[in-house]
């Protein structure tokens, strides 16, 4: 029938598009078809999962499985990791109705009772699979990025979801005792025996740790114990002998998969143990969130989460943290209450504006609802603006000649929390004074750097002249773009910004201004030093608080050094006539400015220039 069609003529469903067809797997193409068997190759592996293993091989296989498990946590799908294990494959397929039936065979196998080693391997694998099941359940209950960070696909295989965690844990406990006895009878070397047993115990602890049945205090204990055990894995790894034949990509031929065949994921044992240790440590650190009353202040919680995010944890750890944050609503009873508490902590407490009744009004047209939304928005916006600029410094996106503008903005965004405003309101909370100290310190340091950079711009020491397609106005638009549509806090117009940046009094005058601001900053930092992490809302990040203060102080000192160098040069090559271009030209030739990149700065957000003086050209 088809031969009667013309070349290029297609019979297709009207809703089926060419775009969709691109995703089709081409059968018989080795690169696409996961079911294709190369001529001469066998469909399945002929590895016998029931063969007798030596203890060394048992140990080797357990370590290989751990590598695959961590590769999975790292983002590789099960089809390229744990499912390539022929032992795991046999346990999971075909499905069973009872846990007992989940063995390396189906039906009966008379010799099974007398094989403690194989039973122990089975217990280990079942523990591993059940751990993965619990991990997937936690991850999918929270927000995550499928296929980018983590792949939850199980290819139609059931990961022992029907069976109780406790039953699997019991199997592990039994395995340890019967295997130990078996080892005694056969005089297995003690190091080999304990290496295997510690892995079985660790699997038991890991399973307990990912189970949601236990309170956090038990989990903490489990995590600590587990980390201790992991420490011993490295030194015993070489006792094992890996069994390459026990893992195969051919398993993909039997998985319900709509993607092309892929290679097994690789990960070294050392890497796997390190990743696992880090993941457990991240979860341990996140447990603070689960303790009621640990964070009395939402601002503190926000800070804690920001610092925790720097760890760049694996998906499972992030999901765990999310489940504690939003799980049973102990920590964050409702987003509104959290925000309300947040705002209250900063502004006047008893103002009618902050009457909680406002937040219960849901009619959008009601002015009380509008007031509530405005306040929430303002608070969030002000923070966001600061963070955006700060991020720009950390990511090093500003050109040297733009730094003046950015520090000018930094200084501005702190204006609303600055001295006069805060002090003129009724200070009902000591909290407000503490935050003011920090605000003044940051404001002053930013002002000092702004003054210094505008002087350097005036002396044309920061480049930026050779941009034929650019203009000051365009640069301003570019950098302030995120803030244009915001009405409060208000962004000044272009004209207002640029003048202070490029206008310059005499060199000495600018240096004076910069040094005065620095002095204020240092005074406030001394105040911050005397305050503790508790008052400054750094509970849970005490070390980070010390670092934060120290880094700011060092940045101040470095700024002082830079200002002094410029001041000395200005004094040495001074001319009475400020408009004298030779003066600028001379200064330009003797001063060398270097802006360190974020990794080498004391604090990423404080780009303090390194200024050196060289001999003048005659």
């Amino acid at each position, binding site marked *: *029938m*088809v*031969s*009667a*069609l*013309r*070349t*290029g*003529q*297609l*019979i*297709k*469903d009207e809703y*089926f598009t060419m775009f*969709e*067809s691109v*995703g*089709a*797997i*081409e*059968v*018989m193409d080795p690169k696409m078809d*996961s*079911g*294709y*068997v190369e001529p001469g190759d066998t*469909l*399945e592996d002929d590895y016998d999962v029931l063969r007798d293993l030596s203890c060394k091989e048992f140990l080797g296989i357990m370590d290989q499985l751990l590598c695959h498990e961590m590769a999975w946590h790292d983002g590789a799908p099960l089809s390229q990791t744990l499912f390539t294990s022929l032992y795991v494959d046999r346990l999971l397929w075909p499905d069973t109705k009872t846990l007992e039936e989940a063995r390396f065979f189906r039906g009966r196998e008379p010799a099974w009772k007398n094989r403690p080693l194989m039973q122990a391997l089975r217990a280990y694998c079942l523990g591993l699979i059940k751990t993965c099941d619990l991990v997937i359940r936690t991850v999918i209950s929270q927000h995550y990025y499928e296929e980018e960070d983590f792949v939850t696909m199980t290819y*139609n295989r059931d990961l022992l979801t029907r069976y109780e965690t406790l039953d699997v844990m019991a199997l592990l406990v039994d395995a340890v005792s019967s295997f130990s006895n078996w080892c005694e009878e056969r005089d297995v070397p003690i190091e080999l025996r304990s290496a295997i047993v510690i892995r079985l115990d660790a699997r038991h602890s890991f399973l307990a740790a990912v189970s949601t049945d236990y309170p956090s205090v038990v989990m903490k204990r489990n995590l600590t114990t587990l980390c201790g055990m992991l420490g011993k894995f490295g030194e015993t790894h070489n006792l094992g002998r890996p069994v390459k034949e026990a893992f195969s990509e051919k398993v993909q031929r*039997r*998985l*319900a*998969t*709509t993607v092309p065949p892929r290679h097994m994921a690789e990960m070294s044992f050392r890497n796997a143990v390190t990743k696992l240790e880090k993941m457990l440590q991240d979860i341990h650190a996140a447990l603070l969130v689960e303790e009621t009353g640990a964070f009395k202040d939402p601002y503190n919680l926000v800070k804690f989460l920001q610092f925790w995010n720097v760890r760049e944890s694996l998906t499972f750890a992030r999901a765990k943290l999310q489940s504690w944050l939003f799980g049973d609503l102990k920590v964050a009873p409702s987003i509104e209450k959290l925000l309300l508490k947040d705002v209250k902590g900063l502004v006047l407490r008893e103002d009618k504006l902050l009457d909680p009744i406002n937040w219960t009004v849901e009619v959008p047209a009601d002015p009380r609802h509008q007031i509530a939304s405005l306040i929430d928005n303002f608070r969030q916006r002000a923070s966001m603006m600061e963070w955006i600029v700060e991020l720009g410094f950390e990511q090093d996106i500003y050109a040297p000649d733009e730094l003046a503008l950015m520090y000018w903005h930094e200084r501005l965004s702190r204006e609303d929390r600055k001295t006069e405003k805060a002090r003129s309101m009724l200070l009902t909370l000591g909290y407000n004074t503490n935050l003011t100290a920090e605000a003044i310190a940051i404001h002053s340091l930013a002002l000092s750097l702004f003054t210094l950079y505008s002087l350097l711009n005036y002396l044309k020491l920061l480049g930026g002249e050779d941009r034929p397609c650019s203009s000051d106005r365009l640069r301003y638009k570019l950098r302030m773009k995120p803030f244009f549509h915001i009405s409060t806090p208000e962004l000044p117009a272009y004209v207002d910004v640029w003048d202070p940046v490029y206008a310059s009094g005499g060199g000495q005058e600018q240096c004076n201004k910069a040094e005065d601001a620095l002095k204020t900053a240092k005074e406030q930092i001394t105040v911050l030093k005397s305050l503790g992490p508790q008052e400054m809302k750094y509970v849970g990040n005490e070390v980070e608080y010390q670092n934060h203060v120290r880094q700011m102080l060092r940045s101040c000192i470095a700024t002082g050094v830079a200002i002094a160098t410029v001041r000395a040069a200005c004094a040495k090559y001074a001319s009475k006539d400020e408009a004298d271009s030779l003066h600028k030209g001379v200064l330009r030739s003797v001063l060398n400015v270097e802006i360190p990149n974020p990794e080498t700065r004391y604090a990423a957000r404080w780009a303090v220039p390194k200024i050196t003086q060289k001999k003048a050209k005659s």
Partner: protein
Amino acid sequence: MRGAPREETDRSSGRLQSDENDNAIVYLSNLLNKELHIHITDGRMFVGALKCTDKYRNIILSCAHEYRSPSRAAVEKAATESSDGQNVTVDMTGRFVGLVTIPGEHITKVEVED
């Protein structure tokens, strides 16, 4: 304006060709979205809804399942476990594969499910 020479000189066979073409279009269009069983050269069978085909018998199936004949070992096992010892049925093993394109050159048989 002069038409294409072939149409003028082969008017009778030209019309026959276009008739055949029409028949083909109608017949094949009727098969769209029906469940087809496609057997291919290496022994596998694909079952899925027909979405697209062309002159070279390239076929696109959606929501397809891939089936293989049971392995020798599976057949032997079923034979030993069978009750009457005479007749044995063993299911083909199948798995979901989604959207597939089967090149015409590999197709050995096409069947339509009733």
